[in-house]
């Protein structure tokens, strides 16, 4: 009976609200099922506090062996001793200055999530559980050293170019400014693109798994240049879904970004040069 009942209708509603829920910034989060939901945004060292309301379905009582809230993987707070709930009951909670050094990350093979989990423990009927995702983003100051990337590459007697990106470290809403200077052109180039690639590596040692995604493909040049031509680069990063560069997060995974300069000739042969850039999140001024 209960099993069937439980399958169709939970015995109670659990709602989790954050104490500054109305003013806190909400950001989209893509769930496993592909849907995007808006969730609150936190950063490390913030207090995570709010209220949890449990409201039994009308006319029912919920017997339990205790209620707790967890900041998943980290902290548990007992909310109630075993007992029965007949009507709506609200529990405040607070996790003060939580250490959350890693940002929420939604990759191909790895996800880094922050979740609040409320558990109503029950004996025979099984526990009732509710989850609430939230997002953590951490802001850093701009890097003190940020050199440009300048490089001369080529294929002997075929193609020599010199390219320059104004920085090696870009924030997520940055603009890549640069130029490509053609020193020698003996092939018939059709076009030239600048790609932003994300390299996500998971596992370690022999079990390392690397996944590379092209997040942006931006055409820099149309047609064949001649020797001496200089082609400008101006690529706004804001339209793309980028994250900061993550290095060895919790010994589990790394996310790196690369700029890939690709030249395509008339026979569709590709000549490319990949260059790592560091992405970082700039503290929002507003």
């Amino acid at each position, binding site marked *: 009976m209960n099993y069937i009942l439980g399958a169709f209708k939970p015995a109670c509603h659990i709602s989790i609200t954050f104490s500054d829920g109305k003013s806190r910034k909400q950001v989209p989060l893509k769930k496993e099922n592909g849907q995007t939901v808006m969730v609150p945004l936190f950063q490390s060292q913030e207090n995570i506090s709010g209220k949890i309301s449990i409201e039994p379905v009308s006319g029912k009582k919920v017997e339990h062996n205790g209620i707790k809230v967890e900041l998943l993987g980290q902290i548990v707070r007992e909310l109630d001793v075993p007992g029965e709930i007949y009507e709506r009951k609200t529990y405040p909670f607070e996790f003060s200055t939580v250490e959350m050094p890693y940002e929420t990350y939604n990759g191909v093979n790895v996800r880094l999530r922050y979740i609040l989990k409320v558990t109503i423990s029950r004996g025979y009927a099984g526990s009732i559980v509710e989850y609430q995702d939230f997002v953590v983003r951490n802001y850093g100051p701009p890097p003190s050293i940020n050199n440009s990337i300048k490089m001369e590459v080529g294929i002997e007697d075929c193609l020599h170019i010199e390219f320059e990106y104004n920085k090696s470290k870009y924030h997520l809403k940055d603009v890549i400014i640069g130029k490509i200077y053609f020193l020698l052109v003996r092939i018939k180039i059709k076009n030239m693109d600048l790609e932003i690639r994300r390299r996500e590596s998971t596992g370690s040692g022999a079990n390392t798994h690397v996944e590379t995604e092209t997040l942006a493909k*931006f055409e820099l040049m*149309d047609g064949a240049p001649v020797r001496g031509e200089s082609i*400008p680069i101006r690529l706004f990063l804001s339209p793309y879904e980028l994250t900061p560069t993550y290095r060895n997060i919790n010994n589990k995974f790394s996310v790196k970004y690369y700029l890939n300069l690709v030249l395509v000739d008339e026979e569709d042969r590709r000549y490319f040069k990949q260059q790592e850039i560091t992405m970082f999140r700039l503290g929002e001024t507003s």
Partner: protein
Amino acid sequence: MMIADGIEDEEKWLAEGIAGIQHNAFYLHRAVDSNNLREALKYSAQLLSELRTSRLSPHKYYELYMRAFDELRRLEMFFKDEERHGCSVLDLYELVQHAGNVLPRLYLLCTVGSVYIKSKEAPAKDVLKDLVEMCRSVQHPIRGLFLRSYLAQISRDKLPDIGSEYEGDGDTVMDAVDFVLQNFTEMNKLWVRMQHQGPIRVKEKLDKERSELRDLVGKNLHVLSQIEGVDLEIYKDTVLPRVLEQVVNCKDELAQHYLMDCIIQVFPDEYHLQTLETLLGAFPQLQPAVDIKTVLSQLMDRLSNYAASSAEVLPEFLQVEAFAKLSNAIGKVIEAQVEMPVVGAISLYVSLLTFALRVHSDRLDYVDQVLGACVKKLSGSPKLEDNKATKQVVALLTAPLEKYNDIDTALTLSNYPHVMDHLDAGTNKIMAMVLIQSIMKYNTCVSTAEKVDVLFELIKGLIKDIDGTLADELDEEDFKEEQNSVARLVHMLYNDDPEEMLQIICTVRKHIMAGGPKRLPFTVPPLVFSALKLVRRLQGLDGEVAGEEVPATPRKIFQLLNQIIEALSNVPSPELALRLYLQCAEAANDCDLEPVAYEFFTQAFVLYEEEVADSKAQVTSIHLIIGTLQRMNAFGVENRDTLTHKATGYSAKLLKKPDQCRAVYACSHLFWVDDQDGIKDGERVLLCLKRSLRIANAAQQMANVTRGTGGPVTLFVEILNKYLYFFEKGNPQVTSAAIQDLIELIKTEMQSDTATPDPASDAFFACTLRYIEFQKQKGGAMGEKYDSVRI
């Protein structure tokens, strides 16, 4: 087949492109109508993607471009209206740059850029600079040219020109100039590059396609010329050097030719004049295949017109030494371009000459200098073979004649004959004809022996056979026309001073004597008459200069004439020579130079005896002799008798009886000169008339014998008329009885059985009788005289 397919395919691709544009335009309009910026950007980028095609020829691509252009105008209106899309122009400027494909991105950027400048939220120069730099990303020639052409189009009214609303706050006209120059340079580079790119195609086709696009490039120069702020200084220091730098460096003949032409056409003449050195300095650096002559000619034409436009600008030409610079530049170009055909060089000289004539009409030395340079160029090859080059040389030689309307000027140009020397015989003649026609047209009198000498040296192609020309090559009619022209020319040589005139005659003689048998009959008569004219003039002066030692005396001239005519008789052209001798004799008679006149007659008689063999010619000659001799009054009795005797003798010896008869009765006049102190020998007159009557009778009898019919009575009627003449003049030997007899004789002859009816002679006789009747009835002394004649 292949080509046809290609064209069909192209039509198909164009249709597809247009369909793509229309399709996206539909959604674009919808987005714009609903103020949806994001959708508008999306569909406009898709729409513009149709322009990324590589499959269309420039012509078709243009069609596609124009479709897209119309849509962009509409989009620009939308962009302008911030209230509708709620996005600041600065944000919009960034937003459009998110587009992934470069071509749509840049079209959109230019479109927003236009709005941005208009909003004045940023200095125009910064936006322009950014746009022109960003457009570098399109390196495909055709796509790049159209994109930059779009940039030029939207920026035209937004340049920070003087007086423009975008000027000021650090935006100066120099920024406008820099912008246009940069766009021009990049466009030209793309245009030049067209020939190296894409699939290898036929060069002509490529050149044609390139030509279709040239105005896109040239438009920039036009824009530069339209910028108010581009004054002479900016033009001189910035615009021209930078444009020329690009023109020279692009090393492309098509571009160089077109752009040089463009520069000359779009900028003011005044600027050209002041920057002549710089402009001309570029020419020797152009590719050898560039048709420099056309371009330079254009420049000189323009400058000539400019000079002609107002007298005030002339000092400028002198100040900048325009001629020297042009001349120098042409020299350098010819030197640098060894491959240039002669015709090219000559046509350059023609232009330079035209320039010199129009701008410095007073500087004959310039004209001569040009001709000299031309001679130098021509001296490499002995004679011109190239038809076109020959034409140019003729143009070169004709120009001064037309300018000065006056052969005199041409004759003072020392290099003129040298240039003519380089023409082939045929053209040389044509040129000589041009010279003569010029003299005729402007009625120019050539007045010194020296000039005459030069002139005849110039037209020597007409005056004598030049080696290598075969006589039978000549068209008879052309030859006649040429020689007639020379004959006419002789009459244009004149000086009031007899001395100089004699010199002229001698000079002409010197030249025409070399003309040979075919020419002398044409050229000698005018010379003879010209000399005779001088004789008559001297006759008029006789009183004044008598006693002085005058070199130019009639006697001297007659000597000369004798020689001249002798040459003609040797040709041989005896009849003409005979006429001329008689003319001279008459003139000598008028000068009272009996021996001279006698000598001329002797010559004429000798010719008659020895050279005139044709009976018809003899008849004509004898009548001329008789006529001339009749008028001679300078002869003493003895000389006269000798000559008359001879003439009468010749008359009686003519072949045909009627001719004899007529000549003999004509001789009667030799003995009766109706002057106050003329000879009046009635007896010998009658003798002649009787003799002619006898001959007429003989002729009549001969006709009876040979044909069985009598000849017409015309001869008798003619003799009757002579009788009447002398009767009326009062020759006592001619009596009314004799007249009566003659009338009867004629009447009898007419009624004879054998008489041949001849209406003409019947009428003649009837008229003669009517005249007699008239005289009878008139009464008076004459009437009485005729009284005894009955008809």
